[in-house]
């Protein structure tokens, strides 16, 4: 069942984080969206249609895989992988895209716009739009288009228009700016299909709710497989949608430790990373893209350019609910560097025959550090949020002749 949390509050806040910091033009559209969402949530037909598509189109439930060779190799916790890489389009992004596209259709909006970083949300939006007969425009930074070419082609194949964004750092942050500018212009006819658990209320809530299927399934599956709850749930965090989707079902299981892994880039001692919680000299609470959360910024409040080898984690802010989970000490956040993620990318490929997305490889990197410190009867559940095929260009460039 989707929903069922007491957060956010009526103003869209998770503690001191969240809210609706957008131009007036958009506020009525956010009200309209919230209203439509609440109506849909109260309508069994909506749930039935979404569940049917999840099963027959996305391929849910995705499996839970025991990573035996990785567990043996690390010599500690038993490691289970929640296989979102096996969802249609190869990542968890489809869960939210399909939910929101159904909502768009229900609201009578024939045109959807989306932003994308790694391209996975763009692909998921293009896919859901093709399935439901919606017109789809995807904003993507030109730097990201260069490093995720296969995904650009996928979107175009499915009939979406991919719009290159050349402003600012030419990555996800700028794609969101441009999508917001489109929305403010075409707000009456267009549905903004936002891809991560961020943006103005109600987006962080809607994205979390549509992604919460990950944790709901994983919790049931791990109980079936092992008869117990995991000791640790672990996921990578860019905006934070796959992590919040996993964490949400475990939020009341006090014995379960929740760990998010941010992009450590070239190291959190440098300024070339995207770990919003790592260094309070360059990251503080602030406002970006409609929500109050932790933001990488300079002392004058200008947004910093971030760096990560993975386009999907290369973003200066983080979903407001993560800021809240950290502040309330319900979840703990750490980071993995580009190098550690690349090593994890190879390790999982070699030991399990699973090529992870570079984003997900950050979570695996933390597994590699943490599992050996845990006892052999403990359980570590990690969200394998996507598959790595889209990253082969990047990895070939870095590892190339070392393979």
């Amino acid at each position, binding site marked *: 069942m989707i929903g069922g949390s007491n957060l956010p509050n009526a103003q869209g806040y998770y503690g001191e984080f969240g809210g609706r910091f957008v131009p*007036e033009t958009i506020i009525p559209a956010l009200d309209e969206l919230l209203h439509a969402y609440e109506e849909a949530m109260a309508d069994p037909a909506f749930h039935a249609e979404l569940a049917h598509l999840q099963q027959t189109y996305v391929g849910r439930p995705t499996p839970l895989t025991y990573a035996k060779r990785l567990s043996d190799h690390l010599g500690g916790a038993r490691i289970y992988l929640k296989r979102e890489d096996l969802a249609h389009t190869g990542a968890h992004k489809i869960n939210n895209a399909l939910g929101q596209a159904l909502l768009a259709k229900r609201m009578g909006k024939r045109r959807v716009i989306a932003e994308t970083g790694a391209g996975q949300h763009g692909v998921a939006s293009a896919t859901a739009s093709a399935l439901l007969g919606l017109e789809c425009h995807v904003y993507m930074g030109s730097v990201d288009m260069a490093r995720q070419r296969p995904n650009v082609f996928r979107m175009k194949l499915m009939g979406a228009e991919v719009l290159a964004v050349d402003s600012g750092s030419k990555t996800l942050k700028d794609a969101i700016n441009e999508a917001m500018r489109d929305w*403010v212009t075409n707000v009456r006819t267009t549905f903004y299909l936002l891809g991560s658990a961020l943006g103005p209320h109600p987006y962080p809530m809607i994205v979390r709710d549509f992604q919460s299927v990950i944790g709901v399934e994983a919790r049931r599956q791990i109980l079936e497989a092992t008869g117990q709850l995991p000791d640790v749930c672990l996921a990578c965090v860019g905006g934070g949608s796959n992590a919040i989707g996993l964490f949400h079902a475990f939020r009341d299981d006090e014995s379960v430790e929740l760990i998010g892994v941010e992009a450590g880039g070239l190291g959190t001692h440098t300024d070339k990373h995207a770990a919003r919680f790592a260094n309070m000299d360059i990251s503080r609470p602030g406002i970006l893209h*409609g929500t109050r959360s932790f933001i990488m910024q300079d002392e*004058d409040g*200008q947004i910093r350019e971030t760096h990560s080898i993975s386009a999907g984690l290369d973003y200066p802010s983080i979903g407001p609910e993560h800021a809240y989970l950290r502040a309330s000490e319900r979840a703990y956040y750490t980071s993995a560097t580009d190098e550690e993620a690349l090593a994890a990318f190879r390790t999982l490929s070699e030991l399990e025959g699973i090529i992870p997305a570079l984003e997900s490889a950050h979570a695996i990197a933390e597994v590699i550090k943490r599992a050996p410190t845990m006892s052999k009867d403990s359980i570590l559940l990690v969200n394998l949020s996507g598959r790595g095929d889209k990253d082969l260009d990047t990895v070939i460039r870095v590892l190339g002749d070392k393979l």
Partner: protein
Amino acid sequence: MSRVSGLAALEAMFERSKAEGRAAFLPYFPIGYPDYETSLAVIQAMAEVGVDGFEIGVPFSDPLADGPMIQMATQKALENGTTVRKCLQAVRELRRCGLDQPMLMMSYANPLLAYGAERFVADAQAAGADGVIVPDLPPEEAHYFARACQQAQMCQVFMLAPTSDEQRIRLVAERATGFIYVVSLTGVTGARAELPADLTDFIGRIRQHTQTPLVLGFGISQPHHARQMNGLVEGFIVGSAVVRAAGQGVDAVRDLAHSLRTALVNS
């Protein structure tokens, strides 16, 4: 004699333009474009041809309500090292040079909150500014500035858009001080050839709920637009067109401001 400031300065400005039977003209210009000194010269040139007030732009790296022209200008300003502090210094210098029109500081929430909302209002007032406009702070989220502005008798301007319903109009009317910034169209800032056809209806919907002066912005760039403002609203804002002219030099800005200003009296 000391200048009336804050809310009183805006009230005096609207009284004057009303007495002259015209709308007030409040250009927007960002500090630091194309460089600090030139931005001050541009503002002074506009003051000399008799514009009524100013929106002083404080650049932000991610201006999501702005179109390409203002994005370009504020990006350039940031590359020139323009900071919030520098923008306050600009206001102080302009006052010292005798500029006496009202000035409202306009920026996005993050740079102002990074500076500190209360500290910003206090320092802006000390520098000689009369109010703040923050497009990504709707009334529900504007509590950061509300008390400080109220205590300092500074204007806190809110926006209304064509999408705003009655409930939003009432909320903004209740909270806005100085004037209400009426966004003429659904979209980002930037010059348009023609203004929307349904402006009169939209303005009429707002007038049903408030006596607060209405200042129209977004898309206005030409003398025939300015003439349309008389009798429709109490004031109007021109931003992107001024920035575009500044790309050709201070004289181009003076000419544009002069043509818009004279259009108001020869209509």
